């Protein structure tokens, strides 16, 4: 495999995030190759390298983007409505991360993981609505990248 230029690698990473922000979904290898006028093999290599560097994470055994935090590539119970679109966040923290990343107002809809009670939060002008909701971090920071899905 030819070594990809660093600039191209980060250009692809930036495109993936821009695509997520614009569409709420991750770009496939083919989407990225077409939009950036690259060979499919180059994008495959870049996705693998960016996964290796924790810039985003691929679904095991595929080149499908599972997570580009705070965005999720699959539907989750953490819904974030912003800029007229509904995004899926990877977790409670990332549901707040989406309005922070987009610099946008947002409505967050999720549920208490034990009781199932609805949880609704809103962000307006970078201010979070009052709430006594708690967020539990299961694993300490030093273990976050050992098993990201479990984390």
């Amino acid at each position, binding site marked *: 495999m030819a070594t990809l230029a660093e600039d191209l690698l980060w250009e692809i990473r930036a495109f993936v995030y821009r695509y997520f922000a614009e569409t709420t979904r991750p770009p496939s290898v083919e989407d990225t190759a077409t939009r950036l006028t690259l060979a499919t093999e180059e994008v495959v290599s870049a996705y693998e390298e960016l996964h290796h560097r924790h810039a985003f994470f691929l679904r095991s055994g595929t080149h499908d983007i599972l997570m580009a*935090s705070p965005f999720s590539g699959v539907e989750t119970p953490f819904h974030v409505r912003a800029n007229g679109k509904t995004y899926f966040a990877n977790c409670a923290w*990332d549901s707040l991360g989406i309005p922070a990343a987009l610099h946008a107002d947002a409505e967050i809809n999720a549920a208490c993981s034990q009781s199932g009670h609805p949880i609704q939060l809103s962000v307006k002008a970078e201010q979070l609505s009052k709430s006594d909701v708690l967020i539990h971090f299961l694993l300490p920071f030093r273990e976050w990248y050992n098993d990201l899905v479990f984390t």
Partner: protein
Amino acid sequence: MLFFRSEEYLKQWLDARRVSHGAVLSVEKVWELSQHWYRDRLSPEYHGRTTEQVLGIFKRLDLTSEFWGVG
């Protein structure tokens, strides 16, 4: 990271799964953390963070317990 309406619901959730208590933050604190963690995530100049930079964010937010450390 999961939402809970109360400490009691969190305890029930942990007990049911027999997993250890991690760290609990208010949603306001996590919003503050999110603003530091994610505000530049869409920038083409964002190329990730070093561990030292991450620890710097935690320190600014007074997240200084062992849970937030690398040791």
